[in-house]
């Protein structure tokens, strides 16, 4: 009986640890009118307590989660050209820009676009990692989120490390 209780407590503690480590950085609701008026990106959310990054092995290559739920199953969503522009912006920023420099892209066909801003660069083991803020909008809907990307010195470009926590969608506008 004692063993069973101990087992249950251990299980709960492990689950708690697992959940806390799964916590990523939820996308922020952004007022696009304010961003356009002030011509300034919102503050990145990496300073909040929930900004805990978890690596999943060597990270994933480019992944649809970069679009922060602007996906076809939850409209509005980006078309192929816009997705390509955002991918170009992310990789261009990661490989070429200094921290806090901003690269923007604009849709050719509608009021949509995005901005990418590397905010922190550091080394872990033999990897170069960069935290960066991505900001995306389609019409009045705008979202901002902090991501992490790492690349090995001998590797094949940046890979992305991030986990979202269940229920993060409710923070999307």
């Amino acid at each position, binding site marked *: 009986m004692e063993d069973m209780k101990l087992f249950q407590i251990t299980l709960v503690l492990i689950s708690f640890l697992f959940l806390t480590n799964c916590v990523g950085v939820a996308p922020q609701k952004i007022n696009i009118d304010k961003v356009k008026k002030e011509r300034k990106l919102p503050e990145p959310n990496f300073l909040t307590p929930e900004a805990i990054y978890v690596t999943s092995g060597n990270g994933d290559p*480019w992944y649809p989660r970069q679009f922060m739920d602007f996906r076809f199953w939850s409209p509005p969503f980006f078309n192929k050209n816009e997705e390509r*522009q955002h991918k170009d912006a992310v990789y*261009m920023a990661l490989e070429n820009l200094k921290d806090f420099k901003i690269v923007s*892209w604009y849709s*050719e066909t509608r009021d949509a676009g995005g901005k990418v801003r590397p905010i922190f660069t550091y080394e872990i083991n033999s990897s170069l990692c960069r935290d960066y803020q991505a900001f995306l909008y389609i019409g009045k809907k705008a979202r901002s989120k902090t991501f992490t990307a790492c690349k090995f010195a001998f590797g094949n*470009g940046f890979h992305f490390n991030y986990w979202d926590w269940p229920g993060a969608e409710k923070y999307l506008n």
Partner: protein
Amino acid sequence: MWLAYFDQAHSKNQENQYCDIKTKLIKTFDDNGKVISEKNVEVVECNDGLKHILQDAGIAKECRFYTWTGSLGYETVQYRTLACEKLDGGYEIIPNYSGID
């Protein structure tokens, strides 16, 4: 018998090139600072069509290709993306110019 004549030379590498003739004034001074000679030299500068409208309009300082490493299936590929550095210090991606380097 067929005779063919073309008055233009075509090369794949020359497509989309933007060329500009710039004049440089070269002055030579002696030890006393006196001008010994002065001459104008014309230099032809060509690039791959990087003179973008943002640069022409004076909105961007410089437009150029930026390279980055990504994957195509299981292969590692060098991509390139055209972006302009604007006067405010930010950068802008120019659509339809990106591709594999």
